[in-house]
């Protein structure tokens, strides 16, 4: 060095960068991606590829040609959105529907707000919910497993356990005991892989592995995820104890649907979750309660996406109300 470098302190910096954090999230999602591949076969990989490619392309297009700024796809955040969107969709979704979802996720939910760090709502969830409302037939077309493990080879159009329960319980006089899909459920299967649903919902254990990785690497803190799971457990536990014939049990609610995927990977998204610990816990309780209200009393069988999006909208308020504990200002 011929010239000395001069800058304000501190002179050392952490090795962690936005990119390395996003990379860790991608690594944490890998178990779920692998399980979905083994479970649904190559079609799930095709879906994943379409989702990732379109998310990256949309971001590249918007930054380079509409905003005329340097491209931001190198920060890997669009990659994460792409994977999450794919994990949230049924495997049988046509490619053009996935593409529309990506346009909405990146173009509408992220870039219109100003790009990374500015969006109010989780992009992948906005994409998914947009598709769910716009293309309900595709979005509830749950193809039965046809991969390398689990289930038969029949490509039948089935339903998720949550969907089945909702459908049958809406009939007059129905009780849970009369629904074989609920009574015959094996928690062991649910934990590992053997239930229907979108690519990211099938294996609780794969998601929990990712959760453990994120915690060990210090990417996320556990309070939001735990707060959601505890709230769902307590809320459904109370109803289940009151009337086990009408309300599904807590373990069923935790292990089915997108609850774990949402609680671990979507609700903990930095940008759209509260900054303080207390705020995070309140945020988690809100998600848990809204999810269960939709599942028990709403029209949709599943409510995690809606719950997270609704709670996303109150994050600025939570950030205003709850601050960190300051030194000497008790």
């Amino acid at each position: 060095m011929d010239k000395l470098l001069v800058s304000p302190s501190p002179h050392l910096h952490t090795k962690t960068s936005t990119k390395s954090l996003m990379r860790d999230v991608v690594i944490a999602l890998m178990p779920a991606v692998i399980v979905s591949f083994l479970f649904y076969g190559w079609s799930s990989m095709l879906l994943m590829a379409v989702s990732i490619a379109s998310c990256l392309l949309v971001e590249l297009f918007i930054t380079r040609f509409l905003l005329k700024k340097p491209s931001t796809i190198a920060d890997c955040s669009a990659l994460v959105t792409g994977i999450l969107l794919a994990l949230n969709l049924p495997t049988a979704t046509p490619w053009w529907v996935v593409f529309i979802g990506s346009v909405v996720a990146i173009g509408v939910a992220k870039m219109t707000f100003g790009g990374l760090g500015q969006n109010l709502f989780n992009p992948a969830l906005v994409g998914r919910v947009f598709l769910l409302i716009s293309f309900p037939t595709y979005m509830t077309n749950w193809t039965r497993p046809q991969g390398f493990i689990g289930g038969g080879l029949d490509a039948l159009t089935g339903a998720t356990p949550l969907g089945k329960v909702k459908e049958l319980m809406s009939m007059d006089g129905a009780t849970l005991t009369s629904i074989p899909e609920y009574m015959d459920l094996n928690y062991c299967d649910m934990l590992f892989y053997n239930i229907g649903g979108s690519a990211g919902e099938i294996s609780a254990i794969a998601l929990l592995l990712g959760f453990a990785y994120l915690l060990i690497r210090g990417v996320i803190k556990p309070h939001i995820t735990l707060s959601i799971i505890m709230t769902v457990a307590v809320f459904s536990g109370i109803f289940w104890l009151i009337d086990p014939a009408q309300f599904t049990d807590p373990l069923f609610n935790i292990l089915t649907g997108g609850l774990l995927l949402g609680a671990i990977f979507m609700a903990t998204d930095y940008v759209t979750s509260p900054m303080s610990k207390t705020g995070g816990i309140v945020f988690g309780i809100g998600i848990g309660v809204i999810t269960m209200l939709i599942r028990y009393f709403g029209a949709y069988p599943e409510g995690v996406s809606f719950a997270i999006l609704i709670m996303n909208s109150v994050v600025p308020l939570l950030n205003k109300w709850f601050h960190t504990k300051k030194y000497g200002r008790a």
Partner: protein
Amino acid sequence: MMKTFSIGGIHPNDNKISKDCKIEVLPVPSKVFISVAQHLGAPATPVVKPGDQVKVGQVIAEPAGFISAYVHSSVSGTVKSVGPRQDLAGNNMTHIEIDVDGDEWVEGVDLTDTLVTAIPEDNKAILEKIKMCGVVGLGGATFPAHVKLCPPPGKVAECLILNGAECEPYLTSDNRIMLEKSKEIVVGAAIMKQVLGGCKTVIGIEENKPEAIKAMSAAVAELQKVGKSYEGISVMALKKKYPQGGEKQLIDAVMGRQVKSMGLPIDVGAVVQNVATSLAVYEAVQKNIPLITNVLTVTGNCLPMDKQHNYKFRIGMPLSYIAEYAGGVPEQAAKIISGGPMMGKAIANLDATTVKGSSSLLYLTAEQTVRGEESPCIRCGRCADACPMGLEPFLLQKYARHNMMDELEENAVQDCIECGCCLYSCPANIPLLDVIRIAKGDVIRIIRTRK
């Protein structure tokens, strides 16, 4: 369970490479430039003029106000000039230039190594000596020591905390003096304790310096056999966490109390002094030696083991002289820092000279220190988790960039201790502390004018 402070903090690699390098004495150069601003507060007023003969330890500048300090000549010889010269940051400051001739000390100075354990009884005389010897806090802020040792009326010191945390990575000078001058430090602590009215004394040392903990404990045990003045002194091992050596953090760690915003440590009954200050107090009170020397570490990952040093220097030595003596500035060094890598100052000018508070010449490579490009905040909250004052730097920097003074004050920007944890931990390389530091200055100015 080892104690530490309760909020925030980070764990950078401590890199105490030079911790086993014994203190070496630097030879006196042919010329020194002694700054009149070596302490917090008003620069001292020079009392010598060109042509004057001075001896080592002679007063060459007198305090210019209540918060100011005496400056002594570190060499004997002839004053050549009194005028502006660029300091560490390249700004002009009055320096006294002295041509060295021999090494003749002023009278009354005890230069032997004999440990003097009997502490004089007159507290007023002790304080006067500390003041006359120009002792300032050597933990970084260089606040005049005698001011801190006189609690304002109505305030009682309950605990004297000796700061041996040395939480800054790389620095090892405190570690070395704790190993080589343990007893002197304990005597210094006993003197300050007596001045403060005989309060409890705790020497806080981080766990990554086990030898220092051992040496200090042994010294305390041995001196407690000598007399009553040494009762109530203890060594406390602290968990390694930056910024443990911050005054407020150390009080929290040792006493479990928190100083109120804009308050002083004495409000919660604490007085914090660095171990190096304690050594300076010992030398001033027991040996009549004014503060003209200190220990500095020459280190860096790019230096081979045999070029790592801990030097006892005299004030006024040009940094370029020290760097040269230590074997030259390494090729890979992109930045040279005086002080620790978290709070130290990058040196713009190697011709600047050592001052009382100099603690290191640290060489960092470009790879270690160049900041990455700033990218958008992803609201990960790492800065808020790291802040030892519990502030929200992501919020403060936003307000600071828009000059929103009311919001800044509401969110306690004035409590910032500029430790650098926020900028260190930001994955998006946002210049958090750079902008917050400026805003803090503005807000404190507003608060002061309001009073």
